[in-house]
């Protein structure tokens, strides 16, 4: 049923349709509307047979989910930013134990400095936690991905994180086609846990494993997560058959055929990029977009296939590895290893800074004009004057050196006029 609805409400509805049995969540902006709504739905009985736990922290939330999932319950939680990081230890534990927990991450920056607005630093910080990470482009996709996430998680006994941009999606009212309960029930059967705490069949879950078997355990974990690369397209196809729309999948190419330049990104900024690309196509530029729907496991083959024909790839991402570079960019480079494709890292939208068509268009034009050094990160809309001043100041403060010089040269050469 079509509804004009806030993203958080839509996700809460989708989660409700998945019939979770335990929800444990701790409020943090911008995830709050989701969990508030779920609390309502449990209290009103719309979501029946579900225990909603008001835990004392995100660490407690994920821990409660671990317990509940290990006891054989379908579980759900949602968080953001610092909350996700506060869960970090438990995230690794949930994946290590193979518990099919589904979690919404309303993506938000990480402090310090404290910042409540959207970027991908949180999910990206947890990219190696053993969770599958799916990124939603729109609220419709956020809804659909949650339903698919349960199928996926429970098929593989792996936890799944559905990432949706905080505020940009969670707080946006837009048209969403919400599925019917019967459809969801047909698509997502009841949870049959791979293992559970059961007095009739007791087992010891969570053994200590020493050097003699730890590598094998980890290898098997890796193998299981890699099998998601086969499972996700199958689930997306099934989803399309059941619900009549395409959603999910590993990667989503947009006008990439014959594209010499392909912009790679993930999350809600894809729509804005597509608008820019449409405009450039209108102007005769052979530009396309590759949306990453699944970041973990990394769909290396699919990304390589989609990008192999391009000459340039511009990766626009809302996080970066401090002291290293682009995160998605590195993965893209990995996928393109050995191919003559230049990869440009563009870091954008940090801490909620708007990513505008104008800024994107400008940087794309600069890439096409050969004005961007592919060996360096580019920060969209950086206040160059400001950082230049600060860098100069710190250089006077006695920290000169070739790397510091390079930073100055970088912004001096590539960032001029980046901010209007």
């Amino acid at each position, binding site marked *: 049923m079509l509804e004009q609805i806030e993203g958080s409400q839509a996700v809460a509805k989708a989660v409700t349709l998945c019939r979770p049995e335990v929800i444990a969540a701790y409020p943090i902006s911008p995830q709050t509307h989701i969990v508030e709504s779920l609390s309502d739905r449990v209290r009103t009985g719309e979501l029946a047979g579900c225990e909603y736990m008001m835990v004392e922290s995100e660490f407690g939330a994920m821990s409660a989910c671990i317990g509940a999932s290990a006891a054989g319950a379908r579980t759900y939680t949602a968080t953001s930013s610092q909350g996700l990081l506060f869960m970090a230890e438990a995230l690794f534990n949930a994946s290590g134990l193979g518990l099919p927990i589904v979690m919404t991450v309303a993506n938000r920056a990480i402090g310090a400095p404290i910042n409540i607005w959207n970027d991908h630093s949180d999910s990206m910080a947890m990219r190696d936690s053993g969770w599958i990470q799916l990124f939603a482009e729109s609220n419709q996709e956020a809804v659909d991905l949650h339903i698919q996430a349960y199928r996926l998680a429970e098929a593989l006994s792996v936890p799944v994180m559905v990432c949706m941009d905080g505020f940009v999606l969670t707080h946006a009212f837009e048209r969403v086609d919400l599925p019917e309960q019967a459809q969801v029930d047909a698509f997502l059967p009841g949870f049959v846990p791979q293992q559970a705490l059961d007095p009739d069949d007791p*087992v*010891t879950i969570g053994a200590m494993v020493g050097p003699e078997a730890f590598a*094998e355990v980890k290898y098997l974990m890796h193998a299981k997560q890699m099998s998601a690369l086969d499972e996700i397209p199958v689930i997306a196809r099934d989803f399309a058959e059941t619900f009549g729309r395409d959603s999910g999948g590993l990667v989503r190419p947009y006008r990439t055929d014959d594209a010499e330049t392909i912009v790679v990104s993930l999350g809600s900024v894809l729509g804005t990029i597509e608008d820019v690309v449409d405009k450039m196509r209108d102007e005769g530029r052979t530009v396309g977009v590759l949306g990453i729907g699944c970041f973990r496991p990394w769909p290396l083959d699919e990304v390589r296939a989609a990008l192999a024909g391009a000459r340039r790839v511009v990766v626009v991402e809302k996080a970066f590895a401090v002291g290293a570079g682009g995160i998605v960019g590195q993965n893209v480079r990995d996928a393109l290893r050995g191919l003559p494709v230049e990869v440009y890292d563009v870091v954008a939208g940090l801490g909620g800074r708007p990513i505008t068509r104008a800024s994107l268009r400008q940087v794309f034009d600069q890439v096409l004009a050969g004005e961007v050094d592919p060996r360096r990160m580019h920060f969209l809309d950086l206040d160059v004057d400001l950082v230049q001043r600060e860098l100069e100041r710190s250089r006077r403060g006695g920290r000169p050196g070739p790397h510091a010089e390079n930073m100055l040269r970088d912004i001096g050469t590539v960032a001029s006029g980046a901010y209007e």
Partner: protein
Amino acid sequence: MDKPFAITLDIGSSRANKTGAWRTERPVYTNRMPPCNDACPAGENIQAWLYEGEEGGAGYERAWRQIMVDNPFPAIMGRVCYHPCETACNRGNLDESVGINSVERFLGDEAIRQGWTVTVDVPPTGKRVLVIGAGPSGLSAAYHLARRGHDVTVKEAGPMAGGMMRFGIPKYRLPREVLDAEVRRILDLGVRLELDAKVSDLMALKDEYDAVFLAVGAQLGKRAYIPAGSAAKMLDAVSMLRDLETGEKPLLGRRVAVYGGGNTAMDAARTAKRLGASEAVVVYRRNKDKMPAHESEFMEATEEGILFKWLTTIKHVDEGRLVIEKMELDESGFPQPTGELEELEADSLVLALGQDTDLSLLDGVPGLVVEDGVVMVGRDMMTGCPGIFAGGDMVPFERSVTVAVGHGKRAAKNIDAYLSGAAPEPVVRPALASYDTLNTWYYSDAPRTRRPVLERARRESTFDEVVLGLDESNALYEARRCMSCGNCFSCDNCYGVCPDNAVIKLGRPGEKYLIDLDYCKGCGLCVSECPAGAIQMVPEEI
């Protein structure tokens, strides 16, 4: 369930890990000698019979039968024994000793009430044994010999069986029906008792028997030389008590003095009271602490109004009065005269200065040695003459019914060995279960039960039994105060406290626990938490 590799494990799989390999010491179940058993002159396994008795019900009979293994007189013992077991009892260090004697009496009385009997469970040996004297020692020997299949004849000089149990102990301490019942049980085993059959020449009889046990006791009252006027009334306590038993009521007068400080003195004084004396005073040359009479006898005598003159000797006896001299103890605790004289009114003086044995029947027995008026025996109770054994008051040892019963038992065992030609069973005495081997925390706080006593008025005028028995619940309570020193009593503590589940509870009657050496790490917790000290650590041999 599809268990993920390594992360999820089968329950209980650690039993594959035999942690017993860590051990440097291992716990071993042991039986230590409980101090009560250790102290019992009759060699009773007190801990064992209390263990049975603790269960109540059918346990009483098992307990009684356990006593009967060693002692045929539970009901008598429960009255007349001075219970050194209680003196030795470890519980005395905790609160008060277990009232072993009173439980024994309860069991003995219960056996009489219920008519429990024992049987001879071995075929006749064809060996004939003569027992001379039907006192506690002789009857005990006869009992044990009969149960071992021997043909026993008891020759008793007196008109009734019982010896000092009958002629030395007043009936207010030992009712005769109790004595008769327990003697009867022995005779019922087939023991032949000949009364008024004084043996005056042992050698004449000896060849008719394969072995002889002498148990003639010490019947002759010692008489000290005390100057006395012609009208002075003096008699000895043993004779007085014997006469009373045979129906002659001695004429003692209103005021009676008893000379001596032993149990016989107490009995004499208390008897005098019952015979109508308005005043009975015990004159003893030392003080109370040095008095050989048992504390309980002294207490009961005091309660009955018996008076005591301590540190006093009698210099002269006249009609109606005694001249006495005050004594004082020297540095070695020996009484020395002070020369300070006074008078004491007394219509009669009863001498209770000890007894001697009439050894005339032993004339001509080869090898038999007599010293200080008693017959010398070895540890096997055999005299210097092979085949002739002796025990009870006629051998050099403390004189008490219980000691005599023990002699009878030991003699019977050795006579049995002598007759079969086998070496006597070796006596294994395990280490003492001393107080420090126990973990007394585990015993609940339970002071002993007092036996009810006859009210004073009745005690002074009748020969009714003074100390009454425990009823069943009290006897049970008292039995359950036993700490089972040195011996497992199935408390399950070792099974409970092992952090490694390495104690296996067998749970079958008579089978208690095993240490599972596959898993025992040798921590020693079972040993330190065993209430009874019935487990010990021994080093592993490497």
